[in-house]
């Protein structure tokens, strides 16, 4: 009874199984992302009250904070699956690590852009060399380095392994980003939302933020599924299961 879960996980590692699984998951994840995104944005931009100090400008956090969390979360996923790719040489782990990188880079970029849009009216500057801003920028460069290294190789699997190694070296930056507001006295504010305790944020501002977090997570899953499916088809081009899919797609 209890052995079917590990068996199923084991099977999921094989490209054809994952291809089918990702195809089934993707529409649901995308639907959840769109629904949660719509609810979260409506709650955040319309329903939530204006801040007594910042007015309406604070509303950018409903985009900024979920993307910032995702920029670190995706890097952690990339690091873990990169580790799996190097240790167990799993093709699927390589695909997940490499296809996570552009999504994570996009989230990091959104974080930096929304942060600087918010910083101009609040701090009076687009950019400051503060520990958290700088470490987030370094995170973006790490993502770009991983993507660049992956594409520099002719052999894609070799490129994926080399880039996974670089991603693992870079994992050291993730705790630095997270704790930078604790370790250094910075301009960027400390964390307001606390998973294991009392959040320093009003409830009607908090729930849209959490819904937006769910939306970004679901979007990541949907996007990853789609990218991984495409990548698997390209990697396994000569295999039987791909040929069968291709033959089914041919217009008659």
């Amino acid at each position, binding site marked *: 009874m209890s052995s079917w879960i590990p068996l199923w996980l084991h099977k999921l590692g094989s490209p054809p199984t994952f291809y089918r699984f990702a195809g089934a998951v993707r529409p649901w994840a995308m639907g959840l992302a769109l629904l949660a995104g719509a609810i979260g944005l409506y709650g955040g931009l319309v329903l939530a009250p204006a801040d007594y100090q910042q007015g309406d400008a604070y509303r950018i956090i409903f985009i900024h904070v979920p993307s910032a969390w995702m920029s670190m979360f995706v890097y952690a996923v990339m690091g873990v699956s990169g580790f799996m790719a190097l240790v167990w040489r799993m093709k699927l782990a390589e695909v997940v690590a490499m296809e996570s990188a552009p999504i994570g880079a996009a989230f990091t970029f959104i974080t930096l852009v929304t942060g600087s849009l918010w910083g101009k009216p609040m701090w009076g500057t687009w950019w400051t060399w503060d520990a958290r801003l700088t470490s987030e920028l370094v995170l973006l460069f790490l993502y*770009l380095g991983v993507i660049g290294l992956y594409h520099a190789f002719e052999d894609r699997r*070799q490129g994926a392994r*080399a880039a996974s190694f670089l991603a693992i070296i870079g994992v050291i930056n993730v705790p630095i980003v997270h704790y930078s507001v604790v370790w250094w006295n910075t301009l960027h504010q400390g964390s307001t939302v606390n998973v294991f305790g009392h959040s320093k944020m009003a409830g009607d501002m908090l729930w849209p933020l959490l819904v937006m977090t769910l939306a970004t997570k679901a979007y990541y899953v949907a996007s990853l599924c789609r990218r991984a499916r495409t990548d698997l088809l390209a990697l396994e081009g000569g295999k039987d299961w791909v040929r069968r899919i291709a033959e089914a797609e041919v217009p008659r």
Partner: protein
Amino acid sequence: MSGAPLPRACAAMLRRDLLLAWRRRGDLAMPVLYAVIVVVLFPFALGPDLALLQRIAGGVVLVTVLLAMLLALDAMFASDIEDGSLEQLVLAPQPLALMLGMKILAHWLATALPLIVIAPLLAGMLHLPAAAMPALLLALLLATPLLSLLGAVLVALTAGTRRSGMLLALMLLPLCVPVVIFAAGAVAAAQEGLPWFAPVAWLGAALILCVVLAPLACAAALRIALDS
């Protein structure tokens, strides 16, 4: 299969790489010339204002040395990959990490040491106060091997690719940020007459960590990059 004893193998590796570097002395002068040119350009661009130049001197010299090292980094394994001797090294009975450590040491001696020797001249051109000179030299002595070690891991990762120059800079930037921060912090503190031992101690700690881990990581990276 046992091969030569380790100390002799290490000495042979070091001697070979230094000899190769010495035979191509022209290449050795390139990073030094590059550093001189970059530093000379600064007073032209910013004007010969003494106070301004003094303030930026430490940072400019550090960044210039870093860029000059980056310029030479690309060539660390290039000729050995071309003639196949790096593959022989991977197959050799001696531990690869130790042999690569010797190669990194030789590379540091050939490229970073001339830069450190010229650094007081560069700093003098920008009017760095003499009181800050020991801090600058000590920071460079600890920071340049760190950059060589970190850079070697990345060069090994790009060993299987053809175009790697710009990519190397992109990959090295995130890793060298802390090094630059601590080294520049030491020089800035010394310039203001503050105690500057703490950042230098951080650099030393990072260097000890890297001396142990970087050759191992470099060996692992090289095996990934050459494995096909």
